């Protein structure tokens, strides 16, 4: 017995196919449209203010002179610290989970926790940072406190990305290393990590893109909104881009709103270049072999 032409209903199925194509296209266009409107709106106010002077000046009471230097340097400084802290911790945890404790209740427990931590609201990390780093460990409202808090916040992202990258290393390569008399650690160090590196790097940069836009946890631990100097070390008070922007937006003067728009453009530019670097590095490192 065969399926009749009528039963197959080719025309009807094709129509359904087409309709769904349009729905999908519509959804995509809508999303893009909102993004474009947003950017155009911000660019209209921000672009005229986005110049070298804006980038190299400290904030000021007078909107016409207010610049973003301390926030930009603060963000870069903090992100570097976050990377420095989150990379070894995240990769270490991923190696432990993928290579040493793959099975067993401990691994499952940690795995579930990591997934849950990734969904915890960022302000909760702020509270943790306030209690742990600012008060208990006495790091005050410093860059270090901010970076440690942010590192905790992005750690799940780094761990999960590193785990995925480690999982993707072909078993045949591991076997090849073992068959030459490699110990487990030699196998991990010489085979797994180099192969997983592009994926790990992408994960770290994505984590940093998350960190650069976060302000809630930093406000919670008490990052300042007006800083007219550059941080001179990890224990220095600091501010970051989103906090500076937030501060300008909440001022009554229109001049500050334009500064905020310029700040948003700068933040977007930094964010996009970070993502571009991530893509570039991944492609470059992968193409090599």
């Amino acid at each position: 017995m065969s399926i009749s032409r009528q039963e197959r209903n080719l025309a009807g199925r094709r129509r359904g196919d087409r309709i769904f194509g349009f729905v999908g296209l519509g959804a995509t266009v809508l999303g893009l449209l909102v993004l474009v409107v947003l950017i155009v709106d911000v660019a209209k106010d921000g672009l005229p203010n986005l110049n070298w002077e804006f980038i190299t000046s400290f904030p000021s009471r007078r909107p016409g002179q207010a610049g973003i230097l301390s926030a930009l340097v603060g963000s870069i400084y903090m992100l570097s610290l976050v990377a420095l802290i989150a990379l070894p911790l995240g990769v270490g945890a991923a190696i432990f989970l993928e290579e040493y404790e793959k099975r067993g209740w401990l691994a499952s427990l940690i795995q579930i926790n990591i997934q849950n931590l990734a969904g915890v609201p960022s302000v909760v990390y702020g509270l943790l940072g306030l209690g742990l780093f600012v008060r208990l460990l006495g790091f005050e409202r410093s860059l270090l406190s901010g970076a440690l808090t942010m590192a905790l916040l992005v750690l799940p992202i780094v761990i999960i990305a590193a785990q995925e990258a480690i999982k993707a290393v072909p078993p045949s390569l591991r076997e090849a290393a073992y068959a030459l008399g490699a110990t487990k650690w030699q196998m991990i160090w010489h085979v797994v990590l180099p192969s997983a590196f592009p994926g790990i790097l992408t994960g770290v940069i994505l984590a940093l893109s998350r960190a650069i836009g976060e302000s809630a946890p930093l406000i919670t631990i008490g990052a300042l909104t007006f800083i007219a100097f550059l941080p001179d070390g990890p224990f220095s008070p600091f501010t970051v881009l989103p906090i500076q922007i937030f501060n300008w937006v909440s001022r009554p003067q229109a001049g500050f709103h334009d500064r905020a728009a310029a700040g948003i453009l700068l933040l977007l530019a930094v964010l996009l270049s970070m993502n571009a670097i991530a893509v570039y590095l991944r492609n470059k490192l992968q193409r090599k072999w």
Partner: protein
Amino acid sequence: MIMTTTAQKVEAEKVEKDIILDIQELSVYYGKFRAVNGVSIPVERHKVVSLIGPSGCGKSTLLRSLNRMNDLIPTARVEGKVLFQGEDLYAPGADPIDIRFRVGMVFQKPNPFPKSIYDNVAFGPRINGFKGKLDDLVEESLRQAALWDEVKDRLKDSAYALSGGQQQRLCIARTLAVRPELILMDEPCSALDPIATLAIEDLIHQLQEQYTIVIVTHNMQQAGRVSDYTAFMNMDADRAGYLVEYDATQQIFTNPQDKRTEDYISGRFG
């Protein structure tokens, strides 16, 4: 007059024949499933031994228990003995890392590292703390693997730029670079075209002068061409692999003692 038992006679023969690897009553389990059942095979130094038999009869499992690669599979368990140069590979103190250094392995699919040709060959010596002239060792290994002339001008190139057959010879060179006492090969030509296959077979002949080789092959002509001895394995109703017959390759192919071997050789099953 002293009566010699058969067991003693067998032992005496082994000494005379210079047995490098003596598999004794070896059974391998994956959890409760017995994949290999009571296999005994003595392997003579500087000989090539091929393992043949239908798919799933435990050839790879048996081979992987000869350098303790099976340790990497959590459920795998071994009974019996594997005497390598007189020492039991499964004795309590035996170190799998050391064993794998001394017993090399070439896999079914070429699996070079995503590194340069040079670094692939240098990998084993480096992780094992080789202190001599690495360049010379790499060259010698590549020569032994009959690959030197093809790659000597591009040692820094990616191993992935090589053809499949070249990659497999690179994997052999990589294994040779740690100077193993025994080399295991698991269907090393199954992913290669006929010409690359012949190159590997020629290579096996040359390697025989310095090394001992145990090779799993799906291809009976190949077993006939490359090996001195052939072990024919089959599996019973429980899918447990067992040894049917082990003899000189010539004997197995022209005058098998077991009906099942004859059927398999003549292509009646498998």
